[in-house]
């Protein structure tokens, strides 16, 4: 036991000696939370637009003002010709051009044309939608609507009435950071010792290989817990994401996920010979799937069947679902039995494979 403690101490020395890497590991979650919390959104606002007004009458001026006054649009320029519109599009200066037909005031049935830069199709759809709504609203201002008409949809947004993005990405960032630290750092750490030849020295010591690996994992486990604490504190106090369910269940699921990540790291270290390879494998084979196939950024339902199926073997997917259920929906741990079960299964499979490979390689 004493020996084991000294091994763990050695691993801590490795981490603490490299202050820059440690700082990055501690600061990364903070930056990610801030970026995702404030910068990464698809809300439309202040998009530059131009107007090609062939009427230049009272009505079109009023409509132009109304569009420009909305939070979605900023008037960039009043145009004189269609060519000018083309130029502005090509230079990327505007993303929407509103074209008013001649004598619009006197012929209200004439169509207003919206030209949208559909390079980004989502944005284009939203832009034309908003512009249409503003124009319609402005034109029907006169009509006083005293009573509701037709079927009125009453929308309840469950769990997240303000539609905060944070409710979705906080679990995502947790899934990402943990994979990053546990899997990437462990695999690189072990391969580094292989490369430097110090692994052999460790293996001939009376310590069992299992303990050597465990000793490597312990510091990363602790670092991960620090990071999770940071993320939860930031999201609770800064982004005001509530923790509806039990903190204990949340921690239990997290520890389970950390174990899976560590196993993944171990497995990678048995496959890779060089640190470069270990990094690239964990970077490409872990990071990207976590960002893309975990449902963190993009909805899984929209993907082709093959990718949907692939997403099932991404541990982060199950972890993120479980965290959302417990943290945001406030469900008990019994409602995430499927997710935890899958994670436990993954842990066992990964351990089995890596232990087998570890023995063969050494």
């Amino acid at each position, binding site marked *: 036991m004493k020996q084991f403690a000294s091994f763990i101490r050695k691993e801590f020395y490795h981490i603490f000696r*490299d202050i820059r*890497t440690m700082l*990055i*590991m501690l600061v990364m979650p903070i*930056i990610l939370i801030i970026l*995702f919390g*404030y*910068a*990464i*959104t698809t809300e*439309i606002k202040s*998009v530059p637009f131009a107007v090609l007004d062939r009427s230049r009458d009272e009505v079109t001026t009023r409509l132009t003002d109304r569009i420009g006054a909305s939070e979605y649009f900023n008037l960039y320029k009043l145009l004189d010709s269609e060519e000018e519109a083309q130029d502005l*599009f*090509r230079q*990327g200066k505007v993303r929407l051009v509103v074209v008013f037909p001649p004598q619009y005031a006197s012929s209200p*049935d004439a169509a207003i044309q*919206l*030209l*949208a*830069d*559909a*390079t980004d*199709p*989502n944005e284009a759809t939203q832009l*034309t939608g908003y512009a249409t709504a503003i124009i*319609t609203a402005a*034109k029907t201002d006169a*009509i006083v609507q005293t009573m509701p*008409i*037709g*079927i*009125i*949809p*009453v*929308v*309840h*947004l469950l*769990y*997240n009435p303000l*539609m*905060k*993005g944070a*409710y*979705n990405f906080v679990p995502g960032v947790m899934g990402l950071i943990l994979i990053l630290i546990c899997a990437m750092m462990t695999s*690189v750490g072990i391969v580094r010792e292989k*490369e*430097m030849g110090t692994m052999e020295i460790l293996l001939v010591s009376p310590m069992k290989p299992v303990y050597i690996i465990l000793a490597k994992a312990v510091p990363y486990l602790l670092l991960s817990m620090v990071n999770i604490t940071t993320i939860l504190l930031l999201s609770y106090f800064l982004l005001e994401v509530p923790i509806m369910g039990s903190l204990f269940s949340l921690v239990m699921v997290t520890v389970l996920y950390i174990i899976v990540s560590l196993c993944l790291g171990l497995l990678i270290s048995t496959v890779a010979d*060089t*640190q*470069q*390879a270990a990094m*690239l494998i964990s970077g*490409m084979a872990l990071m*990207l799937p976590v960002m893309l196939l975990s449902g963190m*950024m993009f*909805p899984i339902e*929209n*993907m082709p069947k093959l990718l949907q199926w692939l997403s099932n073997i991404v541990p982060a997917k199950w972890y993120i679902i479980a965290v959302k259920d417990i943290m*945001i929906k406030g*469900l008990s741990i019994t409602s995430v039995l499927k997710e935890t079960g899958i994670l436990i299964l993954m842990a066992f499979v990964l351990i089995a494979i890596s232990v087998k490979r570890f023995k063969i390689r050494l």
Partner: protein
Amino acid sequence: MRLNTLRYLLEKEFKQIRRDRFLPKIIFIIPMMQLIILPFAANFEMHNINLSIVDNDHSVTSQQLTNKILSSGYFRLTDYSPHYNEAIKSIESNDADIILEFPQGFEKRLGREGTNELLIAANAVNGTKGGMGSSYLSSIVQNFNAEKGYYPADLVGVKVTATNLFNPHLNYKSYMVPGIMVFLLTIIAGFVPALNIVSEKEKGTIEQINVSPVPKSLFMLSKLIPFWVIGFFLLTIAVGIAWLIYGLIPVGSLGTIYLFAAVYMIGFTGLGLAISAISSTQQQAMFTTFFFLIIFALLSGLFTPISSMPEWAQNITLLNPIRYFVEAMRMIYLKGSHFSDIEGHFFMICFFAVLFNVLAVAGYRKTQ
């Protein structure tokens, strides 16, 4: 003599890259995978939203509206629940995303009073999804209103037609693919060389070079050129894949794309080398590069529009070389922008290329 020295150094680099067990595979396979998988995965379009319907009315109207909703293509019926409390369970178990509840006597009241409410409850943990789903649903209901003539005729008077330029089929993949090409070049040019010099440091082989009369700029150049060549090769394959799989051909000039890529890759290799010059272990180099790369990528407009970001974040993106190339690439590919339209972007990329390479040469010390 100088050029000759460079030749020997380059021979060495290419042999080492070729001999590496993993590197050649990783350099080629993984970016290609990205180009094939990412555009399918990175998609904000919504369809297959799971719907749980609670129909307390069982009337013709409720049935008509249900049919209209299900035929829109956005929704998939998960179940009919007898009661709202049942439906909420399918939301908790993530089987359903949205509940649609018709109140009792829905059709009757609509006929009598000309109006009635319809409950839509969306799982908004994922705000975008919940929000978009419920607004799709609302707009289908509005259309239904119009069809049934529940709206006054005056409103129909406003005619607005929308034309989607440059990407008429609103294909999100056409938007993502050029951006991903940039991302791919960034990783190959920025990530791999960063690890390269540090690996020489760790192995100690760099000592033997440091003690020789090889000038440091020449040594850096020998690290830069191979990845530059590989980058061009990859870009060419990527352009081919974009054409074969996504039917995407640049509207603008391919020459402009290569010109941008040439300078851009020099810049990012410079950044990678600068980082590796100040790192003593590969782990450190990797984390530092990774740190910059992830911030640069998230703030590049690759995934979410820059104009949606808050002011401070938009200001940061001005210092982000990825942003300029992603924008330029999309403009050339989809809009056919000329070089003169994007010379500002080109200038910024040149600026970063010079800056990063000066940092790299300054950071690499032959002498301690």
